[in-house]
């Protein structure tokens, strides 16, 4: 879509078209509001054959899908990754943070794992249950109706399990487990570890006539051409464009939120990436859904006489309490899965089963639990590197010679194909004021906008959590008659804990709270300092527990959208 200079005043400007911006756009335009949606990347529709990578075989790529221009390989549907050309960031001396950005309509919802988990009641009362510094100012009961509405509007499969901190929803029926998942279930059972069907936003059953049903290609991360898995582009923004109330600005990089002499927001300024020029548009309300760190960056860059520390930053807390998920993983070789009979086991683009946190009542040396995800492409389409660098390295487990060539190597690749299971823990991080992003005053991106600098360190208890997960993997490997591949990472390797940011679950930079001195937004995600600016991405999260954040981002954004509609009706904005 062509960028235009708009003289008209929108009701609402929304920045970012991912999970947060998408649902906000839908709810506000459905309510009859005139909306401008600004996206930093190009237009993207998963159904566009020119952009489609779904169903493309590996040999369709001259590099056989290897990850040179895209971090997770040629077919992965994200324009941008932890590196975006011309948009640098840095980390403070002895820290490291990885910041993923998907510059495209729909943002990261085009490639995400579709894990649609709800936060539980304990996650909202995290001070009471986990001894953290603050509770959320809202409870599970406040947000539950929005989770329910999301389930019905967008679709998620799963099962009712009546677990204490993993609430049930309005589920579509899940797919049956794959073979290696049955091994995992059996192995976990021996240690009393619960395994239940996954909860993924994939349509295993029809929910409306606008979206197709899963074709079980296992390629959700390529974004679905029949819209069977949820992407904000396919399922929210593109349908909303048909209503005539939405102006979409693509390839537009927001520099700042503009304010008047009273400190009230008047709209935003952005740079049109195509011609390099800056434009500004006006609105009654500004909603930021650019992702936790991008929204924090925009606010911090929106300095004015009335807001000298950045917009909404009188508390000095914007950027603080940054959290990513704590992760650690291990591959396990399961000899019983050698020499598999092959059949189409692609399934959905994610594991069909998972282990929710199961040790709620046990005293451990870390406060917050984790869930375990398993690999799912065990018999999936061969990608670059199939067989590994030494295709029969597992021969060493049987005292057989490693290496060789010819028919022996061909046979060995087939023998070991599909015989490994990867286990990955996804755990809650501790909100910490010392983990943050801030503006790097010395560096600008290619659009001339000051960039971010990160400071993030794991806490001792988070290392303990990773250690616990590795101990569990060892036990599960034993239970499956399997062998951990490579050494079990010990203290010297930090138990294999993930680099902060690498799990791509950043939350918590514009913390929600009732007290303007200790938080940035109120319980409706409105800036304490400015009545007509809202933050609807994961920035307002106080805490996320071990849960994947997308569903909660959208539930909160829907609730905020209802609030905005009501405030506009009352002419309070």
């Amino acid at each position: 879509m062509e960028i235009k200079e708009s003289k008209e005043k929108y009701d609402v400007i929304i920045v970012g078209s991912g999970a947060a911006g998408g649902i906000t756009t839908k709810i506000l335009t459905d309510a009859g509001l005139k909306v401008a949606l600004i996206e930093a990347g190009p237009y993207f529709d998963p159904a566009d054959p020119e952009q489609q990578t779904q169903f493309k075989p590996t040999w369709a790529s001259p590099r056989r899908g290897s990850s040179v221009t895209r971090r997770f390989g040629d077919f992965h549907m994200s324009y941008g990754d932890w590196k975006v050309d011309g948009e640098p960031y840095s980390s403070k001396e002895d820290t490291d943070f990885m910041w993923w950005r998907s510059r495209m309509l729909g943002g990261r919802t085009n490639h995400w794992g579709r894990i649609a988990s709800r936060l539980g009641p304990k996650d909202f009362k995290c001070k009471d249950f986990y001894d953290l510094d603050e509770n959320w100012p809202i409870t599970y009961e406040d947000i539950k109706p929005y989770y329910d509405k999301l389930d019905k509007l967008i679709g998620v499969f799963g099962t009712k399990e009546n677990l204490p901190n993993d609430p049930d929803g309005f589920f579509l029926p899940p797919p049956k487990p794959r073979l290696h998942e049955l091994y995992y279930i059996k192995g976990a059972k021996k240690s009393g570890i619960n395994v239940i069907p996954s909860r993924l936003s994939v349509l295993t059953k029809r929910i409306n006539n606008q979206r197709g049903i899963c074709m079980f290609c296992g390629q959700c991360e390529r974004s679905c051409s029949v819209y069977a898995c949820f992407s904000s582009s396919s399922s929210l923004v593109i349908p909303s464009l048909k209503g005539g109330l939405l102006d979409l600005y693509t390839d537009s990089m927001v520099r700042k939120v503009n304010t008047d002499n009273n400190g009230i927001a008047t709209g935003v300024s952005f740079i049109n990436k195509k011609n390099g020029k800056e434009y500004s548009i006006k609105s009654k309300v500004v909603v930021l859904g650019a992702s936790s760190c991008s929204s924090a960056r925009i606010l911090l860059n929106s300095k004015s006489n009335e807001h000298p520390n950045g917009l909404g930053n009188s508390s000095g807390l914007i950027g603080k309490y940054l959290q990513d998920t704590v992760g650690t993983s291990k591959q396990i070789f399961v000899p019983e899965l050698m020499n598999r009979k092959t059949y189409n086991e692609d399934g959905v683009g994610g594991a069909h089963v998972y282990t929710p946190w199961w040790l709620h009542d046990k005293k451990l040396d870390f406060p917050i639990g984790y869930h375990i995800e398993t690999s799912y492409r065990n018999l999936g389409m061969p990608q670059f590197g199939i067989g590994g660098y030494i295709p029969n390295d597992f021969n060493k487990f049987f005292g057989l010679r490693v290496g060789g060539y010819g028919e022996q190597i061909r046979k060995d690749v087939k023998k070991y194909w599909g015989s490994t299971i990867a286990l990955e823990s996804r755990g809650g991080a501790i909100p910490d004021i010392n983990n943050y992003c801030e503006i790097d005053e010395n560096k600008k991106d290619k659009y001339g906008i000051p960039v971010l600098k990160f400071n993030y360190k794991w806490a001792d208890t988070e290392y303990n959590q990773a250690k616990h997960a590795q101990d569990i993997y060892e036990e599960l490997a034993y239970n499956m008659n399997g062998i951990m591949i490579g050494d079990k990472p010990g203290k010297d390797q930090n138990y294999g804990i993930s680099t902060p940011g690498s799990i791509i679950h950043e939350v918590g930079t514009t913390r929600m709270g009732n007290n303007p001195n200790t938080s940035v937004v109120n319980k409706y995600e409105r800036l304490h300092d400015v009545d007509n600016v809202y933050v609807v991405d994961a920035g307002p999260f106080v805490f996320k527990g071990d849960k994947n954040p997308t569903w909660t981002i959208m539930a909160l954004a829907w609730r905020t959208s209802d609030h905005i509609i009501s405030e506009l009706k009352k002419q309070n904005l």
Partner: protein
Amino acid sequence: MKRRDSIKTIILSSIGASLTLEGCISPLNENVSEKIWEYRYGRTPYEKERDKKFLNAQFFNKSELRTIERIANIIIPPNEFGNINDAGVVEMIEFIAKDWSTPAHNNYGENVLRKGLIVLDNLFENKFNNKLTDCSDDQIKSMFDIISYNDGIEEDFKEAASFFATYRYMVVTGWFTSEVGMRDLGYKGNIPNVWDGVPEDVLKDHDVSYDLEWIAKCVDQSKRNETAVWDEDGNLLT
């Protein structure tokens, strides 16, 4: 891709100075019209341009390409599914030599792939007084028997063994990610289908079974087209 990063470290850590990308890639004969984009899948304009540039340039000379083809045919010999050429293995390696010739890849094309050919060729020159491509299959195999196994490789052969492993990795990947290679492997997916669980005979063979209570909650594929309706407690009615 962490695995690749670590592999890179292993292979490249012993290699020193690198040539620049421009120095080792020559454009194809200008009379030849631009190579048609034969790869059809969603690319951004930047990616498309980048790939096109490489597809229209030549990294290896004819003699090097013949060496790669010969090595590849011995690492994965032809069978009823096809051969190395059917699988486009040499083309893939030619492309990767250019694709990975970046500072981030430590100029892999020159430092690893081309250097590997030189080291392997020297090995045959020393032993048989002949280029690799002029040696017989038996001669080539006699050397591969020495350098292809991880155990007991003598110091003199370590460098050649490391480059052999690199080419084996490339050839195995090239074969099994090709159309013929996937058939050889037995991969059956990448088509629209309705997943309804692991086949009965496979379950039996692995001595595992579906839990009946679990299965009762799973999707009834005969009703997948009926629009979902729930009662107020979230129980699915359709």
